[in-house]
Structures are given as structure tokens and as C-alpha cells.
């Protein structure tokens, strides 16, 4: 049987663990926090780094070490996971700025619609390819809003962007993706109607 954790319970457990770390320097409590959140933080970084697992894990480690040092700055205004995503994203940005030439490559990618084969395995590649045609910011916004399931306000907090900017990037990114994946989407909608 699958048990879906209540978000409020998850948040309460996180906050209790944070309080234990702050009040008693409890390393085991922090270890539990790492265990609870490492999976999604590493997934976020792997996505941002386009599957570079080694680099993503280095940055994830840096994220948790920073969280340990800065834990007293966590004020509970966001969920603990959102706070971690924010640290992870700023670690990613710092690393990314060091490789500015790579960033230019992303931003100036040519909008070139791929052809749409119908097979699922190829569809996956098409989604990957379509995502690469979005700007780095659009990719980051869609990753946080759609794939990590954050609200627009939470994504704005993580990405340190105004809420309106996040919403417009999400809208623009989805419109581009829709254009790129139009063939597949039409098929999928037809299948649903049948």
C-alpha cells in the first residue's frame, strides 16, 4: 500500500528536526533532514546540470553543508525543502557563472522544431530536445513549477525572481514546448477523446 505523507506533517517533522539541530546541535537530526530531502535536491541539480551526476552530487553536498552552517537563518517562512532548493539553485548559479561560455550556448539556442516520432522512447528524447530549445530561465521555471511541483510563489522564492516574471516565463516556456511538441499533443488529445 502506498502511503502519501501529509504536507503539513512533513513540514512539522522538518521544523521539529530543525529546532533539535539549533537547540542541541543534534547531528542525527540533521542527518534525518538530509535523508528526507537529498533525493529531490539531487534530482533538481541533475536536471539543472543536464544529467551531470558527479557535478550535481558535488553541488548537493555543498548545499547541505551550507544549510548546516546557515540553519539559524531558516525562519520557517518557506517549507524546509523550498529553502534547500533555494540554496541549491544559488550554488548552481555560482558554479554556472564560472562557466559563462556554456551559459551563452544555452541562451542562444536556435528555435528549431524537431520532427515527432510516435514511440515512447523517442518521445522522451524529443521532450529532452524540446526542453533544450527553451531559455535557461524558462527551463528552470518549468523544472520548479511543473516537475518539482512548487507553487509559483515558491518558485519565485527559490529562483529569487518576482512572481510575475516566474508566471510569464512559465507561460512562455509552455507555449514554446507546445509548439515544439504539437504533433504528439494532437495525437494524445485524439486518443483521450476516443
Amino acid at each position, binding site marked *: 500500500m502506498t502511503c502519501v505523507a501529509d504536507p*503539513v506533517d512533513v*513540514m*512539522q517533522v522538518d*521544523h*521539529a528536526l*530543525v*529546532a533539535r539541530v*539549533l*537547540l542541541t*546541535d543534534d*547531528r542525527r537530526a*540533521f*542527518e534525518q533532514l*538530509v*535523508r528526507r530531502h*537529498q*533525493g*529531490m535536491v*539531487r*534530482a533538481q541539480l*541533475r*536536471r539543472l546540470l543536464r544529467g551531470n551526476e558527479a557535478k550535481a*552530487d558535488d553541488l*548537493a*553536498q555543498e548545499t*547541505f*553543508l551550507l544549510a*548546516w*552552517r546557515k540553519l539559524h537563518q*531558516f*525562519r*520557517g*517562512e*518557506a*517549507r*524546509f525543502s*523550498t529553502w534547500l532548493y533555494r540554496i541549491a539553485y544559488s550554488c548552481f548559479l555560482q558554479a554556472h557563472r564560472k562557466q559563462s561560455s556554456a551559459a551563452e550556448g544555452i541562451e542562444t539556442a536556435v528555435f528549431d522544431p524537431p520532427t515527432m516520432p510516435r514511440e515512447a522512447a523517442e518521445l*522522451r528524447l524529443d*521532450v*529532452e530536445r524540446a*526542453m533544450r530549445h527553451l531559455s535557461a530561465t524558462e527551463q528552470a521555471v*518549468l*523544472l520548479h513549477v*511543473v*516537475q*518539482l511541483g512548487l*507553487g509559483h*510563489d*515558491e518558485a519565485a522564492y527559490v529562483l529569487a525572481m518576482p512572481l510575475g516574471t516566474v508566471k510569464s516565463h512559465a*507561460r512562455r516556456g*509552455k*507555449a514554446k*514546448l*507546445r509548439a515544439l*511538441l504539437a504533433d*504528439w*499533443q494532437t495525437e*494524445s*488529445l485524439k486518443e*483521450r477523446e476516443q
Partner: protein
Amino acid sequence: MNDEAEDVLDALLREHFEGPVPDEGFCARVVDRLPARRRRNNWPMAAGILAGVAACWFSLWSDPITSAGWRDWLSGYPSTSTMTLLISMMSMTALALAWTIAEADDRYGGSSRLAFR
């Protein structure tokens, strides 16, 4: 973009996301690298409070309103000086209380505020 098309696109993107990465020793590696937490020194704060109280005491001691207010208070006569002294003391206590609550909230707010976004 209509809702149905957007739902399909969202579902496709979520499907495309691999989800949480298995631990595979990551947590142990992080815990091994945790540095010792630095303790906050409290003595500068205590010294500052003591110095402030001492400076306040010395500057008010020679003030005629303070000494008159104190004298009237001891004799049970509610003069203007007594009331001024009382109001000043109550205001300073209220300020100190508000400051303490704000500091505690800043330090441990994460554990007490639970209903957010």
C-alpha cells in the same frame, strides 16, 4: 493555451522527470563532512547590557527629576516626577520585552511557525 492541452503538457513534463535520486551513501558522505558548529558568544551582549544599565544609572542619578520622583515614590506621594519615572520604566521594560521576543522569534522562528504557503 487551453486547460486540457496544458494538463497534457504538464503530465508529459512530470513523466519526463526522473524523481528523487536514491541515497547510495550520499547522506553518510555529507554527515562525515559536517564541520563543528560554532557556538555564539554571549558575553559581548551581556557586557553591552551591563554597560548600558551603568551609563543610564550614572546619568539619571544626578538628574533632579529622577531623585525627586524616587523620593516621592518612597514616601507614597504620586507626583509628576513619580509618574514620569514610572512611565519611563514601563516603556523601557516594554521595549526590552519586545526586543527579546523579536530576537527569540528570529532565532527559533522556524520551529514555531508552522502554517505557511
